[in-house]
C-alpha cells in the first residue's frame, strides 16, 4: 500500500448548462443531498465516501444572471480535487453511483444517460491556477496519517498517565514509539517515502539565461503594457458598494447559511472580467505566473503565508467573460479574508483587479485588496451559495494534515538531536 501514495493532485472542473426550467429543482436536489451528507455524517454515501481518491468536491449551481457584458445561462459546476487520472475517476464515480449522477445531470442540456462519461469529460475545463496545500499527499495517505496520529496519541496519553514515558530520553522515546507500532503490526510508516515537491529552479534559471536575447523586445512590450495598464486603472470607475445595504446584507445572510459549520468551509465566487482584450490577456498572464509561483515557491503548505487552504483554483468561463474562484479552506471567513488582506493582497489584486467591482488598484499590485472594507464587500458580493459540498477529512485542518505527515516521515528518517527534539513536539 505504501507505494501508491505519490500522486500529484488533479483539478476536475466540469461545467454544464442547465435546462432553464430545471434550475430550481436541481438546486433543491443538491441541497437535499448536501443535507443528507452533513446531518448524518456517519452514513456513507456511495458517490462520496466510497471513493478514496477525491479530497474535496462540490456541485453548485451558477445561477443565470445579467452582467455588463451580457447574459449568462444557469450552469452546473462540479469541482473535485483528485489523486488522478481523470478517466479512472469518472469511471469510479459512475461505477459507485450511476443513479445519483444521472439524476443530477438529467437537469442539464444535452445530457444522455447512456454516455455519462463522455458527457462529463467533454465538459471538463482546464484550471489556469490550481493551488494544493499538501502536495503529493493522496487522500488515502492523509487518512492513514491521521489514524497513525490517533494511535500514537492514545499510546502517549496512556504512558503519561502511568508515568512511564517521562523517564525516557529523547532517543528512547522515538524507539519506544517505533516499538509500539511494530508490535501492533503497523509497519507502513517505516516503508513509506514521501515525494517532495519539485524545485523548478533549473527551468527558471534557463529562462533567465535567455533574457539577454529577448530583453529588448520584452522591455518594449512591458513598457507599452504598463502605459496601457495605468491608462485603464485611471479611467476605471470603481463600484460604490454601499448602494443598498439591506439587499447586501440579505445576500450575505443567504450565502453564509452553510458556511463555517465546522473545521473547513467552501467558498464559491464569480465575477465578470473587465471588457476588452487588454484586461483578459493581463489576467491570463497573471494567472499563469501565479500558478508557476504556486508550483515553485508555494508548494509546502503556504500560499504566500496563508496556511489554511487545502485546495483553491481560478477558472475562466463563459467565453472569457467571467472568472470563478473556488476554495476549500480552514476556519472562519473573517480569518480567511483577513489573511487575504494581510498576506496575499498583491497577488489577489493582480488577479481580481482585472474584474468588475474590485476596489481600485494601482500598478497592478498595489491598493486593491488593501482597501479592507471595499475588498470584503467585493468578496461577499461575488460570493455564491455552495449547494452541495463534501470533504473526505472534514475534521482536519491543513496544519493537522502536514503535522501528521511530518510525524509519519519521522519514522522513516534518521534525525539529529535538534530534529528529534522538534519532531517530539509535533505529537
Amino acid at each position: 500500500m505504501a507505494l501508491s501514495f505519490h500522486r500529484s493532485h488533479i483539478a476536475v472542473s466540469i461545467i454544464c448548462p442547465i435546462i432553464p426550467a430545471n434550475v430550481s429543482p436541481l438546486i433543491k436536489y443538491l441541497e437535499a443531498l448536501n443535507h443528507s451528507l452533513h446531518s448524518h455524517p456517519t452514513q456513507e454515501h456511495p458517490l462520496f465516501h466510497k471513493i478514496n481518491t477525491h479530497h474535496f468536491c462540490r456541485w453548485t449551481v451558477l445561477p443565470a444572471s445579467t452582467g455588463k457584458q451580457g447574459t449568462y445561462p444557469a450552469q452546473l459546476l462540479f469541482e473535485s480535487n483528485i489523486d488522478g487520472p481523470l478517466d479512472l475517476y469518472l469511471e469510479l464515480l459512475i461505477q459507485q453511483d450511476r443513479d445519483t449522477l444521472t439524476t443530477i445531470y438529467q437537469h442539464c442540456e444535452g445530457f444522455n444517460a447512456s454516455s455519462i462519461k463522455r458527457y462529463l469529460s467533454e465538459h471538463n475545463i482546464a484550471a489556469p491556477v490550481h493551488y494544493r496545500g499538501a502536495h503529493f499527499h493522496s487522500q488515502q495517505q492523509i487518512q492513514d496519517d491521521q489514524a497513525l496520529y490517533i494511535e500514537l496519541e492514545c499510546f502517549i496519553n496512556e504512558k503519561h498517565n502511568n508515568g512511564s514515558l517521562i523517564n525516557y530520553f529523547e532517543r528512547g522515546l522515538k524507539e519506544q514509539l517505533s516499538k509500539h507500532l511494530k508490535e501492533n503490526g503497523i509497519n507502513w510508516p517505516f516503508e513509506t517515502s514521501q515525494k517532495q515537491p519539485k524545485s523548478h529552479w533549473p527551468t527558471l534559471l534557463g529562462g533567465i539565461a535567455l533574457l539577454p536575447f529577448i530583453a529588448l523586445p520584452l522591455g518594449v512590450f512591458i513598457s507599452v503594457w504598463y502605459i496601457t495598464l495605468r491608462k485603464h486603472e485611471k479611467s476605471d470607475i470603481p463600484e460604490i458598494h454601499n448602494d443598498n445595504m439591506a439587499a447586501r446584507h440579505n445576500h450575505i445572510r443567504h450565502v453564509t447559511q452553510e458556511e463555517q459549520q465546522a473545521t473547513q468551509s467552501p467558498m464559491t465566487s464569480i465575477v465578470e472580467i473587465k471588457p476588452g482584450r487588454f484586461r483578459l490577456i493581463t489576467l491570463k498572464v497573471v494567472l499563469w505566473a501565479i500558478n508557476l509561483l504556486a508550483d515553485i515557491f508555494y508548494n509546502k503548505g503556504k500560499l504566500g503565508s496563508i496556511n489554511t487552504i487545502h485546495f483553491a483554483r481560478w477558472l475562466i468561463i463563459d467565453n472569457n467573460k467571467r472568472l470563478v474562484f473556488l476554495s476549500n479552506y480552514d476556519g472562519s471567513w473573517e480569518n480567511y479574508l483577513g489573511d487575504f488582506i494581510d498576506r496575499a493582497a498583491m497577488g489577489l489584486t493582480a488577479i481580481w483587479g482585472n474584474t468588475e467591482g474590485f476596489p481600485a488598484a494601482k500598478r497592478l499590485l498595489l491598493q486593491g485588496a488593501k482597501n479592507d472594507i471595499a475588498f470584503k464587500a467585493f468578496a461577499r458580493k461575488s460570493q455564491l451559495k455552495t449547494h452541495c459540498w463534501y470533504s473526505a477529512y472534514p475534521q482536519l485542518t491543513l496544519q493537522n494534515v502536514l503535522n501528521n505527515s511530518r510525524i509519519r516521515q519521522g519514522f522513516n528518517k534518521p534525525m539529529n538531536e535538534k530534529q528529534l527534539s522538534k519532531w517530539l513536539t509535533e505529537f
Partner: protein
Amino acid sequence: MQPINFSNIQSLILYAYKDLHHAAYLMLHIEHPDLFKQWLDDNIGNITTSNTRAKSVALNIAFTAPGLHKLNLSQHTYQQFSREFKEGIATNKRSQLLGDEGNNAPEGWNWGGPSTPDIDVLLLCYADSGAALEAQMSHITSELEAYTTQIQQLNTQALFDRKEHFGFKDGLAQPNIAGVHSKAEESNSLAPGELLLGQESGYGTTTPFPHGENNFSDFGKDGSYLVFRQLEQDVKRFWQYLDQQNTEEDNKIYLAAKMVGRWPNGAPLSLFPTKEPDHLNPAIANNFDYSDDPQGNHCPMASHIRRTNPRATDLGLSDKKDNIASVNHHRIMRRGRPYGKPLHKYLSPTAMMKADDTEPRGLHFLCFNADLARQFEFIQQTWVNNEKFNGLYNDLDPLLGSRPKERGPSGDDFTIPQKPMRHKLKSIPQFVTTKGGAYFFMPSISALKQLINSNE
C-alpha cells in the same frame, strides 16, 4: 489622523472608571418613545463624556438595533449599521459561530434570548460607593418608570485584588488607543478607528459609520459597538476538576495557571514559567510577547490569554511586526465586571477546591469595538471557540470553551507543551455558561441629540 473629539464621546468607551467600584446595568424596554426622548433631552447633561474625569458617579447609555428603530432613526441611517448589530447576537448562525449552543443557547438565557422581552436601551451606572449607586439607580428608575419597562437590573461585585471569580487577576492587558492613552507601546497601540466609528482603522481606511442621506448627518461617528454577555462561571467545578488531577497541591495551581496563561496574581507565565512571584511589578504585567516561546513551553498555545491575544505568536507570517499587526486587527476594549458572591473571600485556590455553594456568579462581559465581525466575533470564533487554533487538534479555550462541541471534534483537550513530550488534560468539562447577551451601540453625544430631535 483626525483629532479625537473627547467631549462628543461617551467616557466608558475610552475609560474604565477604575475608581468607581460600584456598578449596575439597567436594561429597558421603551413603551413611550416620545416621553423617553423627553427624558433623554432632560438628562443628556448627566451622560458622562470623556473630556471630564468621573469622580463620584458616571452614567452611560447604549441602544440595541430595535431600540434605535423605535426612536425613529431614519431608515437610511439605520440600514448602514453593520449586519451583525442589526441581526443581533442571538441568531442561529451567530450562535453557532460564537459557541452559544447546547447549555449556552439563547433559548436558555435570562435576557436577550428569543423567549425574553426585547431590550431597547441599556443604562450603565457607576458610583464610588454603594449608597451613591443606589441613589442614582432609584432616581433613574423612578423617573423612567412611567414610559419604560424594566427588563433586568444586573448588579456587579468588585472582588478582592481586582480578580475574577476563578481567582486570577483580570483586566491587565488592554490595548492603548493612539491619541488617547499616552503610555502606548507601539505593539499594543491601536488606531482610533478600531474602537470608534468614523475614525481611521488599523488598515488605514475609515471605519464605516452610519450617516444620513447625502452625508447630511454623521450619526455613527464617535460611537462604538458594545457587546454585553453574561458569563456564568462554575468556579467549584473548575477547581474540583483541577483537584481531581492526581498531582500535588502546588501542581494543581500550576495546571490552572497553564490554562489561564497567568498565575493567580496576574504574573504572566511567559515571564515566570515555573513559579508565581511573590510580587508582581504592574509595569511588566503586560510587557511581554510570545516570540521567544514558539512551542508554548512557557505559555501553552491553547491557554486562555495566548489565544485571545496571541501577541507576537508566529501565525504563519514571516515577520514579527507583521504577526503583531495581523493580531492587532482583532483587539477589543474590555469593560466587564464580576457579579455574585465569591466562592472564597480572598479567592484562595486551596480554599476554593474545598468550598461548596451553588450561588450564581460570573462575569458581566462587556467590550467595545468598531467592527463586530472582525473584532469580538473573530476572537470568539477563530481563537476561543476553535479547537484547531494555530495547529492544535482538539483544544477549545480551556476556560471559555463550550464543551463538548455539537459538531466536529469534541474540543475538550488541553495540551501542555513540555520537554521531551507534551502532557494532555482530557475531557475538560464546561466551566463557563452564557446566560444572556446583546449587541448595543453607544452613540456620541451629537448622535443622542439627533435621536432626540428625530420625528419621522
